[in-house]
């Protein structure tokens, strides 16, 4: 009787076990059958592997980190070459000459190719021509625009009506004093002595407050990048969070 019971129980257990295993297999197969889901998981696992490989550098420099680093160099160069080929070279150069017949586009093309003579000891002077064109045009355009953007407009915005009767007036007065003090600190043609020295000292205090603010923001920036990776690991990959 016992034997029969044991057999029944063991069969029941076996049946349950089989059922359980079957369910598991169904889930796995189901996941792989919904191709998009499984492929997404596979790709995310690859991404997670490389993410962890880079994090491993925090413990110690290691081969896995170096492999990931080398892969990045190759992929970056390959991607950029292909991107330039299909989205810049083809529409802006090849199609212009071959399809639209603008043959004169060959001239800037040749000028661009001259850059490659940089690697030739005898003919590297040829690379100076396209460089000259670039630097000449770039400098010519930059002179008035840099002065306008970074100097004239910035000075103009500093000329504010200051007073000590309102909060806004006090802040305006502070802006004028702080900007001038900061500028005096950077002005080394006059010795920083007497009133100039004191103003320059106040100027460096202002600049230090600015650097403190920049440090605070930098902390936020770096932490955001880490948060991004953890959102990926816990969210996209492990689905532990939304």
């Amino acid at each position, binding site marked *: 009787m016992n034997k029969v019971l044991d057999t029944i129980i063991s069969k029941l257990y076996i049946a349950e076990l089989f059922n359980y295993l079957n369910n598991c297999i169904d889930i796995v197969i189901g996941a792989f059958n919904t191709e998009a889901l499984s492929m997404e998981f596979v790709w995310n696992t690859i991404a997670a592997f490389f993410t962890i490989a880079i994090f491993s550098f*925090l*413990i110690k420099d290691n081969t896995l980190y170096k492999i990931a680093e080398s892969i990045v160099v190759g992929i*970056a160069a390959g*991607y*950029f070459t292909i*991107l*330039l080929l*299909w*989205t*810049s070279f*083809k*529409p*802006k150069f090849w*199609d*212009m000459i071959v399809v639209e017949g603008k043959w004169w586009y060959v001239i800037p093309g040749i000028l661009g190719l001259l850059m490659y003579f940089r690697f030739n000891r005898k003919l590297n002077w040829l690379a100076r021509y396209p460089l000259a064109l670039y630097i000449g045009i*770039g400098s010519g*355009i*930059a002179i008035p*625009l*840099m002065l*306008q*953007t*970074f100097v004239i*407009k*910035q000075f*103009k*915005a500093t000329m504010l009506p200051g007073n000590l009767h309102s909060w806004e007036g006090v802040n305006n007065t502070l*802006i004028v004093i702080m900007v001038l003090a900061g500028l005096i600190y950077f002005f080394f043609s006059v010795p920083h002595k007497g009133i100039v020295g004191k103003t320059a000292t106040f100027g460096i205090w202002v600049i230090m407050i*600015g650097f403190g*603010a*920049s440090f605070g*923001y*930098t*902390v*936020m*920036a770096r*932490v*955001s*990048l*880490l*948060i*991004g*990776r*953890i*959102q990926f690991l*816990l969210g996209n990959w492990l689905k*532990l*969070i*939304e």
Partner: protein
Amino acid sequence: MMNIWDKLLNLDRRFIYLAVFLAAIIPFLFPVGLEINPTQEVISIYNFIEELPEGTAILLAADYDPQTEAENGPQARALLRHMFKRNLKVIIMTLSQDGAALAEMLTKSIAEEYEKEYGVDYTYLGYKPYPSIIILSIGQDFRISYPADFYDTKLNDIPMMREIKNYNDLAAIIQIGGGNVSNMWLTYAQERYKVKLALAVTAVSGPQYYAFLQSKQIFGLIGGLKGAAEYETLLESEYDRLHLHKKAIQGMNVQNFVHILIIALTIIGNIAFFMKRHPKHMKTKG
């Protein structure tokens, strides 16, 4: 024998790494919802987009790359969602080589959410090298640097681009990125062509642009993940309507803990430093 201050000063850096790691992981698993108050510089951009008439063309320069995607990505998504919600005609481009892929993925996914039609509601121009030259050339005509879009369709064959020649036909440019390229947009687009410009930058670049905000050379500024979280807060009803995940707001909740940890580490480091430098304090205070 090493005392406690020596031990603290010589703490293995990996303990600090572990603390940072835990401070960044635990809040995800046990979220604490704290209020995020939008600042005026972010509200300015929101109001500007909110008040534009439907069908107005706007340029979104997504000049960020994978390194800063965690900060700039949520900014870009929030801005593009707002633009599509307002039915603006959006031109998306990038001056970051690695950003070409990111901008394409961003554009496709958000356009799908809003069922927008390519070429009618939005156009993706892609990447071109040498940012300053590209920015200047668009001021003359988009077609100088972009004879075709990212998918090699001539600009004149794209319905919404037929009426758009240069910056004069745009309501504004909103640039997402930071650093040198943002300076170029300021100099070569805003100053040269007097086009309205707002910036969404990484937190590292953020402080630099307050000077341009005060001088009104830019009309708004979104700084880092905090700025993105502020924009998500302003668009909260839209995010809830579409059941979208507020990634920046979630991220800011984690920022709380890591910031507190870093402030605590700074204070502990300083106390240990001063106790070591002035041993008398050590004796009196035990």
